[in-house]
């Protein structure tokens, strides 16, 4: 027996690289190819010109000097600024995410209640917090409690930046999550809960055993996408002097070493990497729940903004 295994006839090694065709355009012919090359060249020139201008301007102001990267060779800078800030950002994000989920479950289910006196106030709270900016919630969480305590003749310790950030993130994202959870439960077909009631389950049983398990798969992608929003909004902490990644890793580093561009690049890369990972995770979850045959619920999209009726066609 010979060791030379029979190989299948080799495919031509270099297939002509086809430009991917889409519905919107044909596979380019010779003229289209020439035009595409021209556009590529034109765009690259414009792009490089803009970048070049920026680089030239920055170099003029000595913003591109190699020495500006020097602080990042020092482990202490990473430790005291970047990791310190990143840890604070993650801390606020994780605590706010957990609280927002709890808030969302409570208010999402309350909005589905059969009792008007539960449903209406819960709806008002959710719509209120979805309609106003997170930042003014943080301002109020920071400045409000001492005044309120004072009115009751109490003195409380000042609210920390961390608490204010978590409060703002929880109230806003909790309200959005409440909408997602409500949409998730509503996305389970009517036949499912009718069947539940007909076999003698009570309201709680139908909710816990039939609706929630199927809804969870349907709303997971939207929940994870909302976490991206939460993580990004944690950067608002900078404005209320919370030492998050933006404050500590960019503002303070820039203030101390004057290295605008390196500090901006480092912090942007960290934020983009974290958010893209969460985003890919959400997409993966979505593909997975689309394949899921055990849940009859339709996948939940991000809810429309406050004031819009739900049920408008979402893309």
């Amino acid at each position, binding site marked *: 027996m010979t060791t030379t295994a029979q190989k299948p006839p080799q495919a031509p090694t270099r297939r002509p690289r086809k430009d991917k065709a889409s519905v919107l355009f044909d596979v380019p012919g010779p003229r289209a190819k020439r035009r595409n090359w021209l*556009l590529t060249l034109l765009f690259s020139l414009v792009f490089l010109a803009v970048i070049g201008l920026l680089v030239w301007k920055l170099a003029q102001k000595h913003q591109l000097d190699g020495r500006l990267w020097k602080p990042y060779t020092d482990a202490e800078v990473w430790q005291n600024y970047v990791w310190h800030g990143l840890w604070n950002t993650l801390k606020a994000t994780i605590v706010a995410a957990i609280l927002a989920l709890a808030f969302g479950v409570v208010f999402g289910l309350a909005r589905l209640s059969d009792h008007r006196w539960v449903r209406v106030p819960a709806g008002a709270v959710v719509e*209120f917090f979805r*309609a106003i*900016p*997170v930042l003014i919630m943080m301002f109020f969480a920071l400045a409000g409690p001492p005044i309120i305590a004072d*009115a009751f003749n109490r003195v409380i310790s000042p609210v920390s930046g961390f608490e204010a950030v978590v409060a703002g993130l929880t109230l806003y994202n909790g309200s959005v999550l409440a909408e997602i959870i409500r949409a998730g439960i509503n996305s389970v077909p009517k036949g499912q809960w009718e069947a539940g009631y007909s076999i003698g389950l009570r309201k709680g049983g139908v909710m816990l055993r039939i609706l929630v398990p199927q809804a969870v798969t349907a709303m997971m992608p939207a929940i994870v996408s909302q976490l991206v929003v939460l993580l990004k909004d944690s950067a608002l902490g900078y404005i209320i002097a919370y030492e998050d990644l933006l404050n500590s890793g960019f503002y303070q580093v820039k203030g101390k070493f004057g290295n605008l561009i390196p500090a901006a690049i480092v912090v942007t890369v960290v934020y983009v990497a974290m958010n893209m990972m969460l985003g890919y995770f959400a997409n993966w979850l979505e593909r997975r729940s689309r394949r899921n045959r055990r849940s009859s619920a339709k996948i939940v999209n991000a809810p429309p903004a406050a004031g819009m009726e739900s049920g408008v066609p979402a893309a």
Partner: protein
Amino acid sequence: MNLHNLLDFAPVFDNMGKILSGFWATVRLSAAAGLFAMIIGTAVAGMRVSPVPVLRAAGTLYVNVFRNTPLTLILLFCGLGLRDTLGLWTHADASLSGYWLAVLGLSVYTGAFICESLRAGINTVPLGQAEAARSIGLTFPQSLRLVVLPQAFRTVIAPLGSVLIAMIKNTSVALVAGSLEAAAVMKQMFDDVGGTIPIFIGFAAGYMILTLPTGYFFGWLAKRMAVTR
């Protein structure tokens, strides 16, 4: 108990002029940033579906970077980087340069979201439409402009409305770039008078007057313009 202090609406009415001018700044910021964000978003969406690979890659890079960067960072970079370091957009009137820097940051950020909504809309346009456009000899820009985008826009009115409402709320971050609008006025009043509930309610109501009708309008428009298929 000192409930008088807790529920005293006097500071809100005494400072009505200041509050209204704050919200007027918010409206101006929203209008300008909304306009530029639509232009940027449409252009980048066109790039992302174009036949030229370099344009597609540039569009994808743009969206991935700006959608995943906190707005606060973008606006802070506009203020610290573009104005303070590079001296761009400096103007004798500091509030004017702050305004344009905030418009720049907001529209660059929001443009990425508009692009993604629009691209989702392009995907809902049936295959036959684009094929028909090609078969009657329309070029790519023509079929995009005359056939695909008009239908795509109509299907994504609701998501675009959500993006624009989020942008109205995001104008509160503009104070980072040095543009003083409603949120900055509220912060200042909190510092002067204290963080009382009436002031908070007043500003919350102001934002709701801006966001909720916008929401109703886009909800109505989406229903009215829905493409029947």
